C-alpha cells in the first residue's frame, strides 16, 4: 500500500569525534552507513524512502574544524565539509574572488536551509540541478577525498557519475573542496533560472569563467546545471571561443553550441525545449557578462 512522506526509518546514530573514527565507522558499515552533515537532502530522502535505509548515520558535526573556509593567494579557496551554504555566502574571500560561488550560494533554498545545509553536501548529493556544481566546475575546483586507501584528489569534472551518483567510495569521505585562485583579470558568473524569484530549484544554471585580454578571449570555462544527468562542462563550446576575438557573432555561435551540447529531460518542472532554449539565453547572458562588460 502506498503512502506518502513517512516517519524517519530506524537507524543507528553515530557521532565520531575524529576523522579517523568517522572513517573507521565507514570501513565497518560500508554501504550501510551514510555520512550526515546538514541533512537537508538526506533527511527528506529518508522520509520519502527514496534511498536505501542505512543501518547507521555517521554524523560529522562532532568533529571539530570541519567547517573551515580558508583562502590564500597560492592555493586558492579551501572549503571544509561542514561549511554551510550561508558561510560561503557570507565569506569575504568568496565575495572578493568568486562571485559565481556567491551567486550560487545566495540563490540556494531558504535562509533556514542555507544555515543548516553544507556546501560540500550539495556536491555529494549530486543532484543535476545543484547550484554549487556549475560554478565549481567552471572554476576548475577539485575535491580531496579520504578513505581507507588514503587520500586522493578528484577534479570536479570527474566527480559526478550520474544523477545522485559520484566517485565517492563507500568508505570515503570528502575532506575538502579546493577552488584554485582565479587567474588575474579573469571573471566568473553563475546565472540561474527558476520559476520564482527565490527559494526555488534551477531549471537551468550556467556558470562561465573567462579572461578577456585586448578583446581576445583567453581561458574560457563553461558549465551547466540541471540540463544533463550530471552538472557538465561544455568543452566543445569552450574551444570555439578560446583565443578568438570577442564579437557578438561568436558569442551567438558559442551560445547556440552550448545549447546543442546539453541533454535536458522533459519533466514536470520544464520541457526539454524550454530548458534548451534557456541554456542558450543564459549562456549568452553569462558570456556577455564576463567577456564584454
Amino acid at each position, binding site marked *: *500500500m502506498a*503512502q506518502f512522506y513517512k516517519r524517519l526509518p530506524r537507524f543507528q546514530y553515530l557521532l565520531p569525534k575524529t576523522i579517523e573514527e568517522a572513517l573507521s565507522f565507514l570501513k565497518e558499515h560500508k554501504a550501510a552507513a551514510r555520512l550526515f552533515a546538514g541533512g537537508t537532502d538526506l533527511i527528506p530522502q529518508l522520509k520519502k524512502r527514496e534511498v536505501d535505509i542505512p543501518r547507521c548515520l555517521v554524523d560529522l558535526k562532532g568533529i571539530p574544524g570541519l567547517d573551515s573556509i580558508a583562502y590564500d593567494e597560492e592555493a586558492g579557496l579551501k572549503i571544509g565539509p561542514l561549511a554551510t551554504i550561508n558561510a560561503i555566502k557570507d565569506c569575504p574571500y568568496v565575495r572578493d574572488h568568486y562571485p559565481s560561488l556567491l551567486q550560487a550560494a545566495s540563490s540556494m533554498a531558504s535562509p533556514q536551509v542555507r544555515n543548516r545545509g553544507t556546501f560540500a553536501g550539495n556536491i555529494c548529493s549530486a543532484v543535476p540541478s545543484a547550484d554549487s556544481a556549475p560554478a565549481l566546475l567552471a572554476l576548475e575546483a577539485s575535491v580531496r577525498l579520504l578513505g581507507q586507501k588514503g587520500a586522493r584528489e578528484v577534479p570536479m569534472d570527474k566527480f559526478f557519475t550520474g544523477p545522485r551518483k559520484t566517485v565517492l567510495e563507500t568508505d570515503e569521505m570528502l575532506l575538502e573542496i579546493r577552488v584554485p585562485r582565479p587567474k588575474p583579470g579573469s571573471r566568473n558568473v553563475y546565472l540561474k*533560472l527558476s520559476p*520564482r524569484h*527565490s527559494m526555488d530549484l534551477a531549471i537551468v544554471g550556467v556558470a562561465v569563467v573567462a579572461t578577456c585580454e585586448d578583446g581576445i578571449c583567453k581561458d574560457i570555462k563553461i558549465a551547466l546545471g540541471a540540463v544533463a544527468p550530471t552538472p557538465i562542462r561544455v568543452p566543445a563550446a569552450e574551444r570555439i571561443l578560446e583565443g578568438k576575438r570577442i564579437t557578438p557573432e561568436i558569442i551567438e555561435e558559442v551560445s547556440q553550441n552550448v545549447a546543442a551540447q546539453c541533454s535536458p529531460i522533459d519533466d*514536470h518542472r520544464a520541457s526539454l525545449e*524550454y530548458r534548451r532554449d534557456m541554456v542558450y539565453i543564459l549562456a549568452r547572458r553569462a558570456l556577455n557578462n564576463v567577456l564584454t562588460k
Partner: protein
Amino acid sequence: MKEYTVIGQRVPRIDGRQKVMGQAKYAADYSLPGMLFCKVARLPVAHAKILNVDTSKAERLPGVKAVVTAKDFNGWTWGFMANTRDEPPLAMDKVRYYMEAVAAVAAIDEDAAEEACDLIKVDYEELPSVFDPEDAIREGAPVVHDYRPNNVSVEYHWNFGDVEKSFAESYLVREDRFRTSRATKGYLEPPASLAWYDPAGYITVWAAKQSPYFHYRHLAACFGLPLSKIRVIQPFIGGGFGGTKNDSVAGDFCAVMLSKMTGKPVKFVYTQEEELTISKRRHSMIVYNKMGMSKDGLITAIQSRVIADGGGYTAVSPLTMYLTGCCTPLPYKLPNYKYDCYRAFTNNPICAAMRGHGVTHTRFACEIQMEMMAEELGIDPVEIRMQNAIDNPKPGEIYRTINDMTLKTCGIKEAIQTLVRDPLWAQKDKAPKQDGSVSYGVGMSATSYLGGARQLGHQSCAAIVRICEDGTVNLITGATDCGQGSDTVLAMIAAEELGVRYQDIDFKMVDSAYTPVDPGSYGSRVTVLAGQAVQTAAADAKKQLLDILGREWKVSPEEIEIRNAEVYHRSNPSRRIPFDKLAKIACYSGSGAVIIGKGYSGYGIEPLGFENGRGNAGTSFSFTAQTTRAGVDMETGHVTISDFVIAHDCGRPLNPIGAESQNEGGAVQGMGQAIYEDFIMDRGKTLNPTFLDYKMPRSTDVPDIKVIDIITDDPDGPFGAKEASEGSHVSAPPSVVAAIHDATGIWFKEQPVTAEKIVAALKEKGKWPGKQ
C-alpha cells in the same frame, strides 16, 4: 452619521497574541492519555475494481490495535445533495482516483501505523480510466459512477433573454476557449482530528474544520447517533480557503471508527504530500465563451459553455457550478445570457470549492474576452468598463440582474475611477516600457463576488452575548475563524453595539455542545450573516441591561446610552456610571439576573434556484477593480509583478487591517493561480505534490500592494459591511493577464501563464529574440 467607537478602528487580532506566542493550539496539538495514531492506507491506482482487502498481516503487527475497511461503514456514503451522496469514507467496490483511501490503521505510534499500512494487501483489477473532462463526457468513455452513465455529475442549462437573436444583431461577436488551472489552497495545516468515541454513545472530536457543523452532521449520520451526542470542538484553524475543511475526509470517519473499535482516543494528521495528492482542490474548467458587442462596445449577450474536471466524486460541486454561472451578469450590465455547464466525473482527485468559488473561472473568461473585443473596436480598457459597468443604485432602489440577483449597493464605477486616478494607471505611459530584455505592462480588471452565501436548506446562524458581572462579555457564536480574522470582526461588532471596549469581549470558539449551529466559513458569509446575529444579540443584551438600569434610575431605558464602556443619561450626561457597575447592578438584581442576549441572522436569502439559475447567490455583492504592473522578460518568459492596486467595495471595512490583509492575501493567491500554480498530472497521478514543485508565490514574488476602500454602506450588512475576502482573488488573475498582454502584446487564455508558455507564444509570433 453616527460615529463609531470600535468599528473602523485598526485593532489587533483577537487571537494575534496567542498565535504569535505559539500558544494557539491546532488540531494536531491535542492529545489524550492512551491515544492511538491513525494512518490511512491508499491504493496507487486511478481506477480499479477492488477484489479483496487483506488486513491480516497488518492486524498481527505488534502495536497495531485495529484496522478499519469499507465494510465497517456498512455502505454509508455522504454528499452535498440527497441525490449526490456518492462518497464513501473508504472505497467499497472500486477506487475512482489515485490514492483513494481503502483502509486505515490505529496503532500505538505513527511508525507502527505506517508499517501496518504497508502490510495491507489489496487485490484489484485495473479499469479503463478517463482523465480529460471533455473525453469523459463523450459517448463510450469509461464510466466512473454507474448512477451517472454519461459521466456528467452536474449540469445546468439556463437561458435569459435571447442570445441567438442578440448575437445576430451584434456588431461584433467573439468565441474563445479559456482554461483555468488545477489550483489548490496551500494552507499550512493539513486535515487533522483527535477523536474519542465514548462507549456510552458519545462522539467528541477536536477537528480542523472551517465548517464544524457540517462535520457534526456527517458524524451523526455515519455513526447513527443523535446530534445531541456529537461534540465537535473547534481548535484554532491553520487556513481553510474552502473545499476540504468545509467537508469531512476519510481520516475523520476512520479515526472515530477506530476509537469505537478500540475504546481509545485516536488521532490522525495527514502529511502535506497526502493533502496535496488527494485533498479536494479547485476545479480546472474549460470555458467556451461567446460575447456579443455593439459598435460602441456595449455588451449585448454572453453565452458560456463550461466543462469542469470534477474528479472522482461530486462533493459540493452542485454549488460550484451554480456560482460559476450565476454571477456572470456582474459587474457589467448584461441583457442576454445563456449558461450550459457540464461537470465531468474523471479519475482525477476530487474537485470542490475554493476561495473565489466558481466565479473566478467565468469572470476570467469574460474579463479577458471583453478586453480582446475592446481592442478590436479600438476602445480603451477603462472606457469599455465604464460604459458597461452597473451604476450604484440610489438609496432605496434596487438593481436587478437578468437572472434576478439584486443589488442595493455597487461601487464598481467608483472603484474603476479611483484606479484611473491612481498613479499606477494615470502615469503608466510615462513609466518605462522596456528595460533590457524586460517589457513592462499595466492591466486592469473589474469583478464582483457574493457575500453572505447560502447553500441548501437549513442556514441558521445565531449568536449569544453573555454579560459577566465585572462588565466583560462572552461572545458565543457558531462561526469559525479559519484565519480570515472573523473572530476579531465579530468581537468588534459586539463591542460597538453593546457600547463596551473591544478588549472587553472574549470570543468563544465553536463547541457544538454549547454553541449555536452555523454553516461555518464559506461564501464570505461570516461577517455579513454571523455579524448581523452578533449585532442583534448585543442589542438584546443591551436592552436587558438598560431595562434594569431604567428601573433603578427611574428613567425610560431609551434615555440611557452606553458608549466606550460608559453608561450615561442622554439629556443629563453627568449622570453616569462605568459599564462594569451597570453589569454588577444587572447581574445582582433580584436573586441574580442572567443577562444573555440572543440574536440570529434575519436576512437569509431564498434557497438557490439550481434549475433555472434565478435569484440571489448571496445577501450582497462586493465589487473590486484592480490594476497590476508586470515586467515580462521577453527572453526567458519570467514574469515579475511589481504592483497591485486594489479598489474594493466591501460596503464598509469593519476592521481595516483585516479587510486590507484579506484583499492582499486574496490577490496574491489569485496571482499564484494566474502565473505559477498548477498540478501537473500524469494519468491521475499528481506529479508535484510538494510546495517545492507546486509553485505558490514566495514572499519575494509578491508585489507592492495598495488597497483602497470604496465605501458604499450596504443596508443589508452589519454596519454596512459586505464581503472582503474573495473579491480580490477573482480580480487578480484577469488583471495580471491583462498586464502580461500589455507587456507582450499577447492574450493568454489558459492559466497559469507560466514563463514557458510565454516563451512558446513569443516564438509562435516570431517575437522571441532568441535563435529560432
